[in-house]
């Protein structure tokens, strides 16, 4: 999952099986080439989702790519995966910049930034119990929004709460990119090989449940989506020699709080100011004043639970977000 140099591609395919003639999916979405970007976190199966989508597309004679990109972030950090699916041979090997479809498999990642580059006539497919309208309004997106409560689907299919397979179903059903039978086959083959037939069948069931439960809406006017969130990195000519950075501690601008799924609840009255939590917190998120603990800095706290584990009193307790 991790790469040495900061980012990388770990999987790449560019092939078609059968002829490129019959391409119902790509036609359905009205383009020669469809580009998909998946947003998940390490361990949630975004990359697996992209691979299975590619596998399904080959069954329809389409040309495909599936690859992922990740920074040096670690487990729990946001991860991107990509697909290109086309009627003809795909000659672009660059990362997807202007996707037709964005899939968000972790609801906590839903914010305007996921719309970066998404075409105005594109699709936003989100794992959330909320309605498409609520999502469209929330991120002000004026294209088509599809939502699915993937956790509910997994529960119903007696699967662990992994959202990638239900979201594959939602993606295919909403966009018409891939036919249901091709997706079922691809899901079945993938899981039979790794986890056996019973698990494979449950995953196919999850696809079917997702197919029937996905909700779709088109919204014309929640405002423009352009401008914002442009990547602000300097070009190579503007870099300092050696990549020198002059602002100490500038990572402060990068808020790791969104990695969290639970947070420490601090009870001042129980605390004896031993400072063990302050010593061990990996993210300097225990706030103090005059040597006394005052609270948690939720901008950076990753929710690891170390502070609660080392506290000798009952002053810190982990509780789920929301």
């Amino acid at each position, binding site marked *: *999952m*991790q*790469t*040495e140099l*900061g980012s990388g591609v770990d999987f790449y395919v560019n092939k078609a099986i059968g002829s490129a003639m019959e391409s119902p999916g790509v036609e359905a979405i009205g383009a020669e080439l469809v580009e998909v970007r998946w947003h998940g976190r390490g361990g949630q199966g975004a990359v697996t989702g992209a691979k299975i989508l590619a596998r399904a597309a080959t069954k329809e004679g389409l040309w495909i790519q599936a690859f992922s990109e990740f*920074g*040096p*972030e*670690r*487990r*729990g*950090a946001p991860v991107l995966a990509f697909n290109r699916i086309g009627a003809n041979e795909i000659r672009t090997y660059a990362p997807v910049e202007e996707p037709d479809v964005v899939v968000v498999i972790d609801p906590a990642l839903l914010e305007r930034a996921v719309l970066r580059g998404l075409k105005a006539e594109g699709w936003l497919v989100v794992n959330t119990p909320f309605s498409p309208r609520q999502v469209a309004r929330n991120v002000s997106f004026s294209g088509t929004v599809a939502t699915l409560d993937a956790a509910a689907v997994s529960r119903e299919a007696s699967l662990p709460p992994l959202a990638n397979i239900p979201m594959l179903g939602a993606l295919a059903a909403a966009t018409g990119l891939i036919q249901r039978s091709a997706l079922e086959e691809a899901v079945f083959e993938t899981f039979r090989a790794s986890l056996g037939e019973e698990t494979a069948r449950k995953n196919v069931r999850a696809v079917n449940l997702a197919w029937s439960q996905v909700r779709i809406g088109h919204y014309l006017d929640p405002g423009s989506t352009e401008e914002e969130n442009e990547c602000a*990195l*300097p070009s190579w000519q503007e870099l300092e020699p050696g*990549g020198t*950075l002059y*602002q*100490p*501690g*500038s*990572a*402060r*601008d*990068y*808020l*790791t709080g969104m*990695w*969290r799924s639970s947070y420490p609840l601090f009870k001042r009255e129980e605390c004896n*100011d031993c*400072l063990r939590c*302050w*010593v*061990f*917190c*990996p*993210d*300097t*998120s225990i706030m*103090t004043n*005059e*040597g006394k603990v005052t609270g948690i*800095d939720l*901008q*950076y706290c*990753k*929710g*690891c*639970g*170390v502070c*609660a*584990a*080392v506290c000798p009193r009952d002053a810190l307790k*982990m509780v789920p977000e929301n």
Partner: protein
Amino acid sequence: MGRSLNLKELTRETPPLGPGHRLCAGCTASAIVRLVLMAADRPVVVVNATGCLEVATTVYPYTAWNMPWMHNAFENAAATVSGIEAAYRVRMRRGELREPLYFVAFGGDGGTYDIGLQSLSGALERGHRFVYVCYDNEAYMNTGIQRSSSTPLGSWTTTTPVGSVTVGKSTRRKDLTAIISAHRIPYVAQCAISHHMDLMRKARKAFDATGPAFLNILSPCVPGWRIEPSDTVRVSQMAVDTCFWPLFECEEGKLRVTVQPKEKKPVQEYFQIQGRYRHLLRPEHEALVAKMQQEVDQDWQRLKEGRIL
């Protein structure tokens, strides 16, 4: 000498390594760095070998470091820090610099036990005045959990799988602390994150040493050791309580155990709280565990008698 190691007072200072870095939730490397650097009573120049700590704390255009910091490559953190230290000494002599400084290099076990060992050995032998800190998580975690020469016997990694043919790593780890002490440098110590005051006192002595100093610090790793993020400090504590990772120092050639567990626990208690060792609890591996216990007991006995090898 110099500053007190009073935690209450240290909370008032800017942390040497600030938030916004992208180490795993629960990772102990950042707290290790902070504890070491907080023990310094002079400005510090930091050099960092390639590894998790380096990539995750300096994602362009950000840095989490609040002090001068330099990355060069995987194999040459010690060479880089010796160059900086030599230049500093020359400029002090010429009167171009006045302020006393400390120099520290951080490397993981990959960058220290394996790839950077020859440049480290050279820098120690040349006698540069610097502190080298190995944050030892016992495998190449940055590239996806491949074994290093620090990986203990029987430990699972992606390149030492557990199955019917192999039972994790088939060889013992390299005793790097002993190898470093064979350079006869003034200060060598083994530390663990769970014993933070012991760690800071040792860092303090390392900074005060009259020549090169070396700290080998156990750094539990969430994905690599297959443990829960909240468990990292507890696992470190158990490594010390079982004497699997004994805490000692070697000052001017004199060895001293610094933390004596109240009650020395069997190694099984350390294995059972980590996914990378869980297979060892199966009955068919009893003999292997007995062998590992014996090795731990022998090492511990030797250390108590004041011998490093």
